[in-house]
């Protein structure tokens, strides 16, 4: 479920040319066209959707390089929030 939400956010805000059905969880989003600016847009949408805040230490390309990486980051953030 969270994967689907992340995937939808990445596609809407990351300005990728891909479609939900073909965006593999491990696909490198930067190779698919994610830029530094659109990463910030994705980050903000994720924060709103999952009610989290990415701390400065997580503001790296590695955090946002794939749907799976984002999912792991959000899992970590929500675990800390509990």
């Amino acid at each position, binding site marked *: 479920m969270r994967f689907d939400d992340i995937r939808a956010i990445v596609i809407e805000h990351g*300005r990728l040319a891909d479609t939900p059905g073909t965006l593999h969880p491990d696909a490198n989003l930067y*190779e698919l066209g994610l830029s530094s600016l659109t*990463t910030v847009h994705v980050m903000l*949408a994720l924060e*709103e959707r999952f009610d989290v805040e990415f701390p400065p230490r997580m*503001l*790296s*390309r590695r955090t946002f390089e794939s749907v799976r990486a984002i999912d792991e980051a959000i899992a970590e953030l929500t675990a800390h929030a509990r």
Partner: protein
Amino acid sequence: MDVARERYYLGGTFVVEHRPGRGPTRASAVVLLPPMGYEDTCAYRPARTLADALAAAGHVVLRIDWPWLGDGGSDAWDPALPERAADAVRTTVASLRARGLRRVAGVAVRAGGLLALRVADRFDALALWAVPASGAAYLREERAFERLSAARRPPPPDDAPALPAGALEAGGFVYGPALVAALEQLDVATMAPPPRPMRVLLIGRDGTMPPAAMHDALARGGAQVEARAGRGLGDLLEDPYRARLDPALRDALLDWLDPEPGAPPASAAGATRLAIGAAVERPWRARGGAGELSGIVCEPADGTRPGAPWTLFLNAGGVRRSGPNRLWTTAARALAARGRPSLRVDVRDIGDSDGTVEPHRDLEAMYAESAIADAVQAWDWAAAGGAARIDVVGLCSGAFLGLQLAARRPVRRAVLFNGLAYVWDDAARADSVAVHVRASLLDRRRWARLLGGRIDARRVARALVERGRLSALEGLGRLAGRARPDPVEQLLRAVRASGTTLRIVASEGDPSLAYLERHVRPAERPQVTLIPGADHTIRPVRAHARVVALVTGEADHDVPTHHEDPTCDSTTSAPS
């Protein structure tokens, strides 16, 4: 579209006015308040499109540059910047009321909306598009943007100077300590509400509603707040040559604005010149092939030094005349301080020059003969005004325009940054496609553009075939001991033979280095000046002083140079 445009200054503020041509005028005028930093660079052309649409519907529209951006009268280090920004808005609104326009609406984008809210009492209505709930939230976004961008750049040199305490850099733009401090204090939830009821349209980021705290704070003050989920922000903030205005957003604003008819306003009373320290600037216009060409002339306040050359600054990709990271404005004013005049020009389709309002479909328009013709026209204007010696400065596609101009008109000195193509033919198309392809064979976004019709697939295919044919011919020629002269090498040789001093500059590792090595034999290759630790568009900011010194000629002998760098990476960037 029946719209008249005029450019002038109100105090230290650069203003572009769009007003209805022969049609009826509305009582409600509009001030467009742009975003900041790199977002302003992207949104400039779409803002012009929006202003035209509102003017065609009868509204007088004023677009402003923030004082430290574009053609504004200050810079990021000005300690009075927050107050200057507020004054810019106050003065602009007051100028409309003084002309008999009874109501003034503000349309503000992103962080421009935070500054608009500081002076909300001046407006009768405010539309706030994707405005963050606080300055701190906005600065956090910018810090994140910079952190993610910096990871892609070469490492800084060991002696790289740090930014002064309290300043922030993002995407090649500086937020000086005074502006950072002022933004950090801005929080919509705690700001004093507008002193009188007003209409507010809040538009969220794409697919999201605006912050509830912002809605509640404005409603508490008595504003009639209408909130909508956003769309079109991603289109607006695409890179400058692909940015576009979402028609639905335009229509939403047209619907929201007060339609009451009004009397035609009095003429604008703006100044035609702006004094900035040792420089005086004024708008420039000329008739071009696609309509009006636009630019800014920057001259020494104390008069041009006898014999001093003029400098023409050319667009870098789709970036307007102020240049990448506002470098051309900065360099133009530095030249003026040394007694040297300049013109920073928009060729067609870019900045405030006429041409298409659609985003560039591909690279063709920026490397077109028509764009060269516009650059030639700027040269002819300067020469007709008595300029005996003319320099040109360009980056990326601007470097192409600069060299092509030097092949057509006498140029004293050409300072060319990160040129990825100096001759635009099928081979160059093939090369640029090859760069795109090498950038990532799996870059499906680029391929989707290609296959989706945003790039002419047939032309690309022809170019790739041509590249292969040329490579084969070159190989055969070398084997036979009669290598075919490369057109790039021929052009460089011809320009040098005509008396032009070439100053080729490359960011460390930029693909422009590989381009020269591919096209120009070592014995013919011009010396290349390297800018260490900078990317293709000369970010970070610490590299900017070196750029200015190269433009003025003061750094000609003190920078590292490149002779042969087989390790340079040609896969990180494509022409723009």
